[in-house]
C-alpha cells in the first residue's frame, strides 16, 4: 500500500468524513415508561398523583401470598395446588420440610411490600421539589405516604416477627435488620408523624383514592384510618392504654357497622387486579382454597359466620389433607379485602379492656360481635383467661380469612393450640429473612 493512488486516498477520506455522521447515535429516553430521573427533577402534581395511586395499587401486590402464608400457618385454610407442593409442604411443615429463605412464600410478599415503601420514599423525596402543590397538599401526601410505609413494614414484620425487618430503607443501601421491638417502635412513631402531617393536610388529597377508601379519602378521615392502624400496632406492643387512646382518634364505633373500614379494592377491569383469595369453593382439589376442617368443627352452634365457608359438593383431598369446605370469605373476584375495619377495632378495644381489667366493658364489646353473628351474649366466666379465650375465638371467626389468627395466637404464645393435621407437621413461628437480603 505504499503507493496508493491520490484519488483513492481522497475517496477514502470522503467516506470516512461522511462516516463520522453515519456513526452518530442519539441518546433516547426509555420508550416504555416514565423515568425516575425525570420524576425527581420535574415533579408535577399529576406525576405525584400517579405515584400516590401507584402506592395504593401496589399495596395489593402479592397480598394473596401473604394471606395464604398467614392463613395456612394459622390453620385457617389450605391452599391446594397440584402444581406447587410447597403450599401444603413447607408452609405446614410437612414431614421434615422447613420454611426456605429463598422461596416465593417469603420472597414475593416481602419484596412487594418494600417496593411500595420505595415508591412512598420517592414520593416524599419528590415533594420537596414540587412547585405546583400547596403546603397543605404536600403535608397530605406526606401523611399518606408515611402511613403506607408503616403499614407495609408492619405486614413484613408479621411474617418475620422475631427475625426482625429493615426499617432504614429510604436511601440507596438498606440499613441493618432491627429487632421486632425496635421495628414496632419505628412503625408507631412513623404513624404518629403521618398523623401530624395529615392533621395539617387541608381538606382534600391531590389525588383520588379507590373505592376501598370510601369515607376515608380526605386527610382528616384518612387520619382516622392511620390511628386505627396505630391502635393495632399498640396492641401488638401490648400498650393497652395506648390502644384505647388511639381508638378514640380512629373510626372506632362500638355500635357502628362492623364492616366500616378501609379496604383493598379489586376489580376485573383492565389493568386492575382481582381478589387473589377468591376461589370457586367447589374448585377441583388441584387448584383450590379449602377451609381447615376445624373452622366448621370449632364453631359455636348458630354462628352465622360459618357462611364464610361453603360445604363442597365433593370433599377435596390433596397431599394427605382432606376438607369438606371451600373458603367463601370473598364471594367474587371484585370483593374487597379489609385492611382494617370496625370489627377489629371493637375487638382491639375488648382486648385492651380485658388486659386492663375492665371485664364488663370488654364483655359488652364482645357481645356486640357475638350478637352480630347471631350468637347469644357471652355466658362464660369473667376471668382474664376466659375472656382472652373468648376474645381470640371471636377474632378467629370475625376476622377469618383477613390474616389475623396466626399473628394473634403467636402474640399470646398459643401457637401450640393450633391443630396438627398430619404426623410430623409443624406450626411455624415466623418466616426466615429472605436470602436475597444477603445477611
Amino acid at each position, binding site marked *: 500500500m505504499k503507493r496508493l493512488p491520490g484519488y483513492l486516498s481522497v*475517496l477514502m477520506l470522503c467516506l470516512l468524513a461522511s462516516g463520522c455522521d453515519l456513526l452518530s447515535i442519539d441518546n433516547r429516553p426509555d420508550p416504555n415508561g416514565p423515568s425516575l430521573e425525570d420524576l425527581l427533577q420535574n415533579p408535577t402534581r399529576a406525576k405525584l398523583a400517579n405515584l400516590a395511586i401507584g402506592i395504593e395499587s401496589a399495596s395489593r*401486590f402479592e397480598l394473596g401470598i401473604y394471606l395464604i402464608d398467614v392463613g395456612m400457618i394459622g390453620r385457617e385454610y389450605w391452599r391446594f395446588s397440584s402444581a406447587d407442593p410447597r403450599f401444603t409442604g413447607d408452609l405446614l411443615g410437612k414431614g421434615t420440610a422447613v420454611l426456605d429463605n429463598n422461596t416465593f412464600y417469603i420472597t414475593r410478599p416481602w419484596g412487594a411490600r418494600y417496593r411500595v415503601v420505595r415508591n412512598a420514599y420517592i414520593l416524599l423525596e419528590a415533594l420537596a421539589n414540587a412547585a405546583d402543590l400547596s403546603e397543605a397538599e404536600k403535608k397530605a401526601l406526606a401523611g399518606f405516604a408515611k402511613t403506607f410505609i408503616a403499614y407495609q413494614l408492619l405486614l413484613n414484620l408479621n411474617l418475620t416477627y422475631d427475625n426482625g425487618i429493615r426499617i432504614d430503607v429510604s436511601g440507596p443501601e438498606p440499613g441493618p435488620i432491627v429487632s421486632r421491638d425496635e421495628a414496632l417502635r419505628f412503625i408507631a412513631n412513623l404513624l404518629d408523624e403521618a398523623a401530624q402531617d395529615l392533621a395539617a393536610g387541608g381538606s382534600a388529597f391531590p389525588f383520588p383514592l379507590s373505592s376501598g377508601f370510601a369515607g376515608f379519602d380526605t386527610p382528616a378521615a384518612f387520619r382516622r384510618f392511620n390511628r386505627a392502624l396505630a391502635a393495632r400496632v399498640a396492641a401488638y406492643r401490648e400498650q393497652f392504654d395506648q390502644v384505647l387512646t388511639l381508638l378514640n382518634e380512629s373510626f372506632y364505633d362500638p355500635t357502628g357497622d362492623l364492616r366500616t373500614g378501609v379496604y383493598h379494592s379489586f376489580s376485573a377491569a383492565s389493568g386492575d387486579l382481582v381478589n387473589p383469595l377468591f376461589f370457586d369453593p367447589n374448585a377441583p382439589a388441584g387448584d383450590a382454597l379449602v377451609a381447615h376442617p376445624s373452622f366448621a368443627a370449632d364453631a359455636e352452634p348458630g354462628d352465622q359466620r360459618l357462611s364464610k365457608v361453603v360445604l363442597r359438593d365433593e370433599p377435596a383431598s390433596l397431599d394427605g389433607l382432606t376438607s369438606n369446605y371451600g373458603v367463601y370469605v370473598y364471594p367474587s373476584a371484585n370483593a374487597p379485602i379489609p385492611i382494617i375495619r370496625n370489627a377489629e377495632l371493637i375487638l382491639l378495644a375488648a382486648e385492651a379492656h380485658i388486659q386492663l381489667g375492665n371485664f364488663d366493658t370488654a364483655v359488652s364489646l364482645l357481645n356486640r360481635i357475638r350478637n352480630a353473628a347471631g350468637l347469644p351474649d357471652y355466658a362464660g366466666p369473667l376471668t382474664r383467661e376466659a375472656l382472652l379465650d373468648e376474645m381470640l375465638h371471636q377474632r378467629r371467626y370475625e376476622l377469618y380469612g383477613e390474616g389475623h389468627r396466626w399473628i394473634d395466637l403467636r402474640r399470646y404464645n398459643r401457637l401450640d393450640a393450633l391443630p396438627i393435621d398430619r404426623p410430623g407437621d409443624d406450626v411455624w413461628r415466623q418466616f426466615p429473612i429472605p436470602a436475597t437480603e444477603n445477611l
Partner: protein
Amino acid sequence: MRFPLLLCIVAGMFLAFPAWGQRLVEGTVVDARSGAPLPGVSIVLKGTMQGTTTDVDGRFSINLPPGPQVLIFSFVGYRTQEIAVGPEVTRLDVRLEEDVLGLEEVVVTGLATSVRRSNLAHAVATVNAAELAEVTAQPTLDAALSGKVTGAYISAYSGAPGGGLSIKLRGISTINGNAQPLFVVDGVLIDNSQIQSGVDAVTNATGGGSGVAQDNPVNRIADLNPEDIESIEILKGASAAALYGARASNGVVIIRTKRGRPGQTIVRVRQEIGFNEIAKRLGTRTFTAETALAFFGPKGLEEFQAALNGRGFYDYEDLLYGNRGLLYRTSLSISGGNERTQFFASGLLHNEEGIVKRTGYDKYSLRLNLSHRLTDRIQLETTTNYIRTATRRGLTGNDNSGTTFGISLAATPNFVYLLPDENGIYPDHPFNSANPLQTAALMKNEESVNRFIGSGRLRVNLLQRARQALQFILEGGVDYYNLENDARFPVELQFERLNVDGRGPGTLILRQANTFNTNWRALFVHTWTPGTLDLTLTSQGGLTGANFDQNQLLFVADGLVPGQQNLDQASTIDREQTRQFQRDRSFFFQEEANWADRLILTVGLRGDKSSINGDVRRFFLYPKASVALNLHQFNFWRWPVIDQLKLRLAWGQTGNIAGFGIKYTSFDPTVIGGQAGSIISRRRGFDRVKPERQTELEGGFDLSLFHGRAALEFTLYRKVITDLLLQREVEPSTGFGLETFNGGELENVGLEIGLSLVPVDRPGLRWISQIRFWTNRATVTRLPVPPFRALGGGFGATLGEIRIEEGQSPTQIVGIDDIDGDGRPDGVFKLGDVAPKFQLSFSNEWSIADRLTLSVLAHWKYGGDNLNLTMLLFDLFGTTADFDRDDDGDGIPNGIERVNLLGVSARPFVQNASYFRIREIGLYYDVPLERLWPTLHRTVRRLRVGLSARNPITITPYKSYDPEVNNFGTQPVADGVEVTPYPAYRTFLFYLGFEL
C-alpha cells in the same frame, strides 16, 4: 453517504484496466470421477491477481506472460490443483478431484474476504447443504444443526411442533445476557427473538416459584427454510468472530443461501410424506380400590368402581399424545442463468401435525436470489425471501392453574372418564380444573408469522492490476416480520366455565409483534502482491451500522360472549406494550499477510458503539490476531503421506451488548379503581452499562493424510468473559428486585476434535465417516455477588436449582439434601451439573455404485443432568407408572418413597440426562432412469426415492419423555428443567425427488 458512494462507483468505472499477456492458453476443466465439465472453476496465475473462470462447458482461456508459469485451479467442493505450465504450452485440460472431506473449502475470515480452510488460523465449523437438510427433512434450521457442529451445545426445549432450541457455542458465554449466536444470512443480521405467546394469562406458570416466562416460544431463526441454505459457517469464539464485535460473543453463524450457476436451468422437486409419533410414553399407574381411595378420596373410590363396573379404564396418555401426525412437505427449486445473470428460486410447502391433535407446524417460503454482472467491474447480488409460518403448540409445560395438558394428565388416573358424549360435550375432570382432552379439542394457540428478508450487495472492482486490486463493497439488508399469536380459550372449557381465574369465563390472548431490523456495510478490500517476497497482503476496512426496532403488544381479554373471538366481545381487556430500539454503529479494519501459504498472519480491530450502552458515544474496541503455519509448504517437508500439517494460534476479543433498557430506572404502570398509577420498577437501572467482553485464545493443528483420505482437526481453547452483565437480586428491602451491572468473570476451557475419513473410495463404494468430539468446562472464576439462581434455573433449592456460584461450574445443580440420613435436610449441596462431560457425534455415509446412499448421524451426549419435576408431579397425584413398584425392596413403594423425600432432598429430581441418539438416518436410491425409461430420462434427469427418519432411536437413563427439554425455553445458562413438556416425537418420512 450517497455522494461519495456514487463517486466511488463512477470513479471505478473510469479506471483503466490494462490488457496483459503474451500468449493464450486454452483448455477445459472436468470432474475427475465422472468426466463432466465444471463451469465456474477459478483459474489464477500464481503470485498475481490475474485469472479467469471456466464457462458453462468448462472451457477457459487465459493470457500468460512468457516463460514457465503456475496456474491454480480451484472450485468449491474440489481439491485445488496447482499446474505448472511450460513456456510452450497452449492447450491445457485439467481433471479436478472431489474434495470429499471439505479440506479445501473457502471460509469467511473478515467481513468481506475469505480464505481457504488450509490457510485458516482458527477452527471454523462448516455445515453444507447436503449435511444440513438432505439426510432427512428438517422442519427448522436450528434443529438441523444438532450433532453436526463440534463445540455446540444444541438442545431442544420442547417437543412442540415448530422447534424451539437453545444453541450455545463453546460453553457458557454469559450469565444474564443474550446467549444465542448472531445469525447472519447473506449479510443480513437475522432477528432470533423469542416472543412469549402470553398464555401465561391462563397457565399462570409465573405465579409460583419462578417469575421467568414459560410460554415456550419458538426462536425466530426457525423460520428459515433449511433447504435454501448452501453453507453454514460457525465462528465459535472471539478469536474467529472478533470482526463482528459487540454482538459476536456467543459466536456467529454465517449462512449463505443457494445461488444459480451458469448453464442449463435445473429444476428440483422434492416431496416428502411421513408422520410424527411420540418417542417415549411414560405410562400410568394401575390403581386398586385402596389406592384410588387413598389418593383421590371417596370420589376416587366411586370413580374407580364405576370404571370397574363397566365404564372401563382409559389410557389418557395415548388419547392425548398418541396422535400419529401426518407430515407433508413439498419443495421446488429452479436455478440457472448465463455468465452475466444467475438466479435461484425456491418454494416450500411444509405441513405437519404434532402428536397432539390440532397442534402442528406449517411453513411456506418463497425465495429469489439474483446475481448480475453489470460490467466487468460491477456485480450486483440480491436475495429476497418471504416466509409464512403457523405454529400450533398446544398448552404444555408448567402452570399454577391445572390447565396445561401435562399437568392435567398428571392429575388423571386411568379410572376417570373424560371422553365426550355424542354431542361433543366433555365431562368435567373430577380431580383437576381442566379436562385435558377437552382443552386439546377446544382451545387454540396459534402463532403466525409473516416475514420478509432481503439483501443487496454491490461489488465494484475499482482497481485491478497484476499485483494489486481494490474492491468496494456496499451491502445492506432488511429483516422484517409481523408475528401474531392467537390463543383462544372458549367459555366451554372446564376451567373457563368454572372461572378459575376470577376474571370471567373465556379468555382471548392476542400477542402481536412487529420487528424491523436493517443493517448496512460499506468497505474497501485491497489486495497487494509485492513482486519479490512471495507475499500477499489483503487489507479491508469500512463502516457498518445496524438498527433493530421491535414493538410488542399483548391483549388479554376475559369474560367472553360465548362463541365470540373478537377482543371487543369481552368484559375485561388487559394490554401490555413493549418497545425496543437499538442503534449500533461500528468501524473495522483487518490486515492479512500470506507468505506463500506457509505463514499467514492476520490482525484486525473493530470499534462498536450502541444506543444500549450507558455512554452512547463511546467506541468499545475489539482486537484480534492470529497466525497459521503450514509446515508442509516448506521446502524441508519430505513426508508425502502427510498432505498437510498446519499449526495455528488465534487470539481475539468480542462483546455482548446488554439487553434493552438496562440503563433506565423507570416506573411500571398499575391500575386501581380505573385510576392509572406508577409503581417503581423492580429493576434498578444501571446507567453505566457496557458490553460484556470475551477474550479467547485458541490453538491447534490440522493434519491431512493419504491424499485427502483422512483429516484430523484438533483445537484447544480458553475463553474468559469479563464485565459480565450480572443481574443480581438486590436486597428487596430497597424496593427493587433486580439490578444489572458489569462485573465478575467466567472461564471456559474446551477441546474439539474432528476426524474425517474416507475408509473406502472405489468406483462401486464410497464410505465417508466423520467423528466429532467436543467437551467444555466452564467455571465462574469471580463473582462479586452472592450465589444466585440462574435465570430460569428452576424453582428453588427444595426442588433443586441451577446456581451461579464463585469457583463452581455455572451450570451446577444444587438442592437440599439429607446427608446424615436423619430424614431432615441438612443444607444445600451440589447435586449435579447440566453441562455434559463430553459430546460425540458420528456420521457415516455409504454410497453404493453412486445409486444407493445410506446416511446415519448418531449423537452421544455423555453426562449432564436434568431437573425432572414431571415425575414429581405424577408422584404427587399418585399416577406415576411405577408408583407401586418397590425397586429397592424396602417395602415402601417407589412413589411413596419419592414423595416422602420432598422437602428433605432434591436428589430424586436430579437425573442423568445422557443420551445416545440416532438423530438422522436416510436411505436413498437414484433410479437408473437412463436404463429403465430412456424416453423419460430426456426430461427427468434424475429420480430419487428414499426413506428417512429423524430421532428414531434414543437410549437414555433419563426417566421422562426426553432428555432434551427445558421448561424455560432458551436461557443463558440454565437448561434441562422439566415440567410436563410437550413430549418429544420422532419422524419417519418417505421421499421422492426428481430433477428436470
